[in-house]
């Protein structure tokens, strides 16, 4: 099994991939809904808004940030907070992933999340331009991410370099860069054409464009099964009334009062039934 298959298998089984997809779709939907060119919104607004909303939705799905639960709390606490401003469809499909499955794992100021030995950062791109991302023009942390070795392909090429490169003295520096992350760090890249509503969402291992391509590998997350969501099985609330406050006053009407017409004048059949 390749490293790529192992990572996708783990993230798929734990519901993480479906969670990322749900988060992205919610962020993209809301961004498009709020977008209004006549108000003055532009591409910058779209990018920043989608970015912020994606971070918010990922935190919701994975119970991180402001949506964190206390230690040992169940994932069903504070659902009203978790669901705030989501649409009914989003609430119905909300992927309930146990808190702690994914933790917030920012890297040098770049928002990140991790599950076990895999971290992912975010990178937006223009629609259709995912394969043309030039990591050398991105932030320093993204550049470092793109310099990681690809366990499925890179080992041989490094050895080849050792054998063939007369400047092999520089290799330790390159290896240091390649291995300076504590865990494998991937990138979730997202695009959205606000006019056509065309969207892309990939998880992958970026590679520097000097190698001729932007990705060592990438997986289309809009092709993974969507979150099946479902409302939670919630226990009934404790029936004990706070502070044992007495019931509000209710009084039986007298027969004379009941005989007086009020608001109910039933159809013949119901009257007959009673």
């Amino acid at each position, binding site marked *: 099994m390749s490293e790529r298959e192992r990572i996708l298998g783990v993230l798929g089984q734990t519901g993480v991939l479906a969670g990322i997809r749900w988060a992205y*779709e919610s962020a*993209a939907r809301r961004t498009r*809904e709020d977008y209004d060119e006549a108000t003055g919104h532009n591409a910058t607004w779209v990018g920043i808004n989608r970015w912020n909303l994606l971070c918010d939705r990922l935190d919701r799905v994975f119970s991180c940030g*402001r949506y*964190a*639960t*206390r230690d040992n709390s169940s994932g069903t*606490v*504070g*659902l*009203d907070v978790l*669901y705030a*401003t*989501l*649409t*009914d*469809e*989003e*609430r*119905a*499909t909300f992927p309930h992933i146990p808190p702690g499955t994914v933790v917030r794992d920012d890297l040098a100021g770049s928002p990140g999340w991790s599950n076990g030995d895999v971290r992912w950062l975010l990178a937006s791109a223009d*629609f259709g331009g995912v394969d043309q991302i030039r990591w050398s023009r991105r932030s320093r942390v993204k550049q470092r991410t793109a310099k990681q070795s690809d366990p499925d392909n890179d080992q041989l090429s490094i050895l080849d370099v050792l054998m063939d490169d007369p400047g092999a003295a520089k290799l330790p520096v390159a290896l240091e860069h390649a291995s300076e992350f504590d865990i494998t760090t991937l990138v979730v890249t997202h695009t959205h*054409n606000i006019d056509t*509503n*065309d*969207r*892309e*969402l990939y998880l992958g291992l970026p590679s520097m464009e000097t190698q001729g391509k932007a990705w060592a590998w990438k997986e289309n997350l*809009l*092709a993974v099964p*969507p979150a*099946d*969501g*479902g*409302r939670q*099985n*919630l226990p*009934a*609330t404790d*029936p004990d*009334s*706070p502070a044992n*406050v*007495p*019931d*509000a*006053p*209710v009084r*039986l*009407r007298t027969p004379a009062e009941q005989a007086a017409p*009020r*608001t*109910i*004048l*039933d*159809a013949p*059949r*119901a009257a007959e*039934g*009673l």
Partner: protein
Amino acid sequence: MNPRTRAQEVAPFFDGSRLALARHLAGKRKSELAIKIHRSPSAVTAWEAGTKQPTAANIAELAIGLNVDPWFFAVRGEDVTAINVAPHFRSLRSTSQVLRDQALAYGQIVVDIASAIEVHAEFPSPQVPEFHVEPGDTVGPDSAARYVREAWDLDPGPAGHQVRLLENHGVLVVFSPPGAAAIDAYSFAAAGRPTVVLNPIKKDYYRQRFDVAHELGHLVMHGEAEPGTKAIEDQAHRFASEFLLPAEEVHDLLPTAMGRSAWTTLFRLKEQWGVSVSALLFRARQLGRLSDVSYRNAMVRMSQQGWRRDEPGAIASIEQPSLMPRALELLDSVGITTGELIAQCRIPSHLFEAVTSRTPIVHAAGSAAVSDGGSNAEPADGHQNAKSSVVSLLRPSNPTTGDLAHPRE
């Protein structure tokens, strides 16, 4: 008696508005219902508008399609279910029209049941003061809150049991039914009976109390206001803050800096006043006790501790309504059974139980997986094919316990 026979009996009494009510409770658009019963959307429209009368066979199909007894569609002597004012929903943008229609229909059922009970029992008469506040008025909500506290003769200090306070002044308070948990608390005034419908998934005693005060603010201030706008919602929030935490009384109690002792103070105030620490922090900033920086830092700490979603507190149970459940107990003691009232209201028993329960009924409900589509989504453009995720309130969440309302069976 089978549904077809009952449908024949109902046909002369068929009322299109009752069909619309049932459709809304079922969370269906006209086109969805039309597909289900193999008729055209225009036929459904005509039946609801009263421009055409359905045949007995149509009525039977509608009853089966919507999971109600055919008698649900029969005309009522007086349309007590009409709600002529728009309810105050908080998140209009995130609440679909279908869901709003469903929530409004549920409110109509609540009022209908209350009216049926009130034939036999007397509730406290409605005494919700009116204090009109113009949109954008940031001072009016404080004045309105003080006005209500005075009108209701509340002692200084914590405002006590919020649900009971409203009920004692004639406000119906009920929980949303299972399946409708996607909508926040909302309120409306109809048939002279103001009503607050609470979100059953909100299990936090402190935040629920704030919700109740928020909805009271709408009932007091916003009888004619455009529901759902940010200005209106902000005013209701401001009202709730002043109603539960009167500035004159809490100003000097709130911390001015966020040291260790400040957290101790806040959690003590939380228990004393029955308000979340989040709300207390917001109030402290609102009243100028905390700087913006201190407030932000405090909220970061709240997030780090997992308190924004799950705040620790001494009281684990929420406030519960009593008016209708107490009335049912009284009626039962004199031989008027729940079954008779259900028959009179002609609604499914599980819906009646949801309206008249002291505790929220929350459990699993069906959901629809939504593929929202996109350029590299498979299949493409799921928007057009996405199923509605709105759960029918006419179907019991637990099919083994629910049933149709059969007036004579």
